[in-house]
């Protein structure tokens, strides 16, 4: 009996330690649940780094995690062409300005802004600092705001053991860094950041995840697939 009580106490302790935040999604993202946006427009990222590629890397990998979270995301190539035609593709101009026009023109319920403050190769991965902000086109209110200071580990690990395995891992990591590490890192970053967004209309968990533990809004983490 005593053994089971100790086990129960240990389990409870582990569960409480595993949760990184005491707040639920319903508490952290109350305005988002209230507005319940369906259609999202993703603005081109605001790139404050010297890495010119970072903007395209982020932009081309942001749609899928949001769509998989259950949202209707306006198609990015088409959206960019329309924004360019309307001279409205400079996200900095709209970051703190009213965004109601995106509702009127595109039918977007909310606009997603991203700010890249750091994107640099570091060892076997990419060091990145990114902030994502979602604002309502109806009220201009901020519905989601998350800043992540991430180390995106893009190293390759084979299943080979011993010295040969180590040599293979180093060689494959070097090739990966040269060719695809930045693309992989952008995907990792977007997946990580939006893993905490409340589910949208097309998800089976839509409006049912308010009690889920929310992750901290500002986070420093190592991300590895």
């Amino acid at each position: 009996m005593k053994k089971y009580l100790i086990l129960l106490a240990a389990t409870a302790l582990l569960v409480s330690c595993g949760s990184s935040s005491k707040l639920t999604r319903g508490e952290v993202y109350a305005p988002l649940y209230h507005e319940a946006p369906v259609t999202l427009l993703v603005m081109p990222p605001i790139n404050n780094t010297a890495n010119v590629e970072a903007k395209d890397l982020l932009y081309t990998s942001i749609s899928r995690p949001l769509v998989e979270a259950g949202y209707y995301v306006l198609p990015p190539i088409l959206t960019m062409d329309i924004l360019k035609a309307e001279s409205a593709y400079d996200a900095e101009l709209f970051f703190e300005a009213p965004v109601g026009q995106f509702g009127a023109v595109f039918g977007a319920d909310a606009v997603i802004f991203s700010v890249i403050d750091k994107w640099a190769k570091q060892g076997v991965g990419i060091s990145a600092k990114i902030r994502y902000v979602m604002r309502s086109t109806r009220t201009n209110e901020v519905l989601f705001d998350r800043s992540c200071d991430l180390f995106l580990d893009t190293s390759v690990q084979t299943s080979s053991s011993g010295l040969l395995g180590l040599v293979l891992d180093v060689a494959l990591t070097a090739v990966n860094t040269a060719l695809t590490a930045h693309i992989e890192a952008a995907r990792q970053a977007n997946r990580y950041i939006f893993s905490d967004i409340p589910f949208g209309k097309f998800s089976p968990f839509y409006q049912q995840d308010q009690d889920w533990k929310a992750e901290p809004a500002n986070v420093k983490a190592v991300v590895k697939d």
Partner: protein
Amino acid sequence: MRKILILSIAALLLCSCGPSVGVLYYWGGDASKGVTRYEDRFYEAYGKSQSPESLCAMLCVYEDMLQNPGGERGVVPPGICAEYGYLLLKPETAAAFAESASDRERRIYGRSDYSTYFPEYGLKLLQKEMELYPESRKFVEPLLKKFAGK
């Protein structure tokens, strides 16, 4: 008492894990390995490495997604029909495909009259986007008007 304790532990563990979230859509490639052809081709077709060849590859990924809808919802993801249709309606797309597509890519469409077929197919895809996702109507309708004079 013992049963209650075991159930309590199980309940606590379940609470900590939360429900498992599945993949809603098929994006080309094996999503379980974190790889999707959609994202691979999108960066190549959009970024600085953009080329007629990368456009051809992107079109074939859209077609694959359209022909093989999967995931929990079993439908094409939002925006894909609209974007695919829009690219097919651009006059330069048919010319680029005729010029640069590989034999394997040409076989996907099974025809060679791209300059006639692509615009027709593109309009149908815009219609399909509105049928699947009525929330797209606001931005798709002006495109239909522009390309088909509707």
